[in-house]
């Protein structure tokens, strides 16, 4: 499952690494959107397959952030 950026912004903080298991609702990363911190959460339980961005990357709407495997 691809977690993409809903809003355009800058990656403030990456909270997970590839290989890590996460529960639904866990914070995956934080984006700065219009000077506001927006947390990106896991939509379901899973394992982090791939983290596609790093801190201070600029992201657009729809940019892939994290790929979750079941």
């Amino acid at each position, binding site marked *: 499952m691809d977690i993409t950026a*809903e*809003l*355009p*912004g*800058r990656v403030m903080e990456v909270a997970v690494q590839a290989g890590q298991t996460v529960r639904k609702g866990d914070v995956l990363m934080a984006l*700065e*959107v*219009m*000077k*506001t911190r*927006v947390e990106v959460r896991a939509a379901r339980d899973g394992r982090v397959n791939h983290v596609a961005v790093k801190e201070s990357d*600029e992201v*657009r*709407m729809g940019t892939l952030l994290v790929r979750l495997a079941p």
Partner: protein
Amino acid sequence: MSAPALEVMEPGFLSTVQDLGRKGYFAAGIPPSGAFDRFALRVGNLLVGNPPGEAGIEMTLMGGRFRALRAAVIAITGADMGATLDGAPLPRWEAVPVRAGSELAFGVAQTGCRAYLCPAGGVDVPSVLGSKSTYLIGKIGGVRGRPLRAGDRLDVAPGARATAGHRLRPSLIPSYGSEVELRVLLGPQDDHVTQASVRTFLSAPYKVSSKADRVGYRFEGAEFQFRERAKAVEAGSDPSNIVDDGNAIGAIQIPGGKEAICMGPDGVSMGGYVKIACLIAADLERMAQAKPWDIARFRAVAHAEATAALRDSLARASEASLVK
């Protein structure tokens, strides 16, 4: 009598109550605030039979969900956030009836950045210093000086003159792209940078950064070169430092020469950085609809064009622009 008419189920990314702002306090450091896109708020109000300066809800980037607590007439203007009423698409720039119990939902802005929800009668919150507008940093106006939250119940005054079906003339509906031209008056300190830098500023693309909000919009692009000049010791060490002076809403500062920051409706009243130019008042509504990643190009105009553009914007936001 006002009565609760709208319940906030989800506030969206940033939703605030705004009218046309509080005038007369900027010298004391309190900015006007008010709708960032004044054209959209004015038209939204006129569509539902309100005076153009009534308070509505300004939603940013991603709108919220609202439940109508009683029957109402509303208009949605500005950015296209894919508004739906009980799941059915809702037209923008048109007065539409809403039944008690129905749900209004907004998503992510597809085009533009700020949408306005204007209920007939206007959102009724206490006036603070003559305005219902929310000023977030000062924590005044709107709903206790803060963004809307889930569970807020907003009072709406009776909208006696509301008639569903009024629309804005299609030719006057703004289209929001990912590139925007912003017209500016150069100065007051454009002579602090080289002529080459001024030319670059007026021709190169600038990207709206993720640090763009109601206080100021940051633009990333070509850096600015300063002319050699006698240093004012008291001004500071940054080549962009000047002895602090007053800002206008729309003033474009260039701290460090690294980026351009244009003051929005919640902008600060003073600054110690060179202001290369000032956005014309008529184009505040264009900047309001630019979102991070969009490209802006600045074009210098003369004062006469700036005032004509403002007159034109005000004329477009009038009863004569509506199809009834």
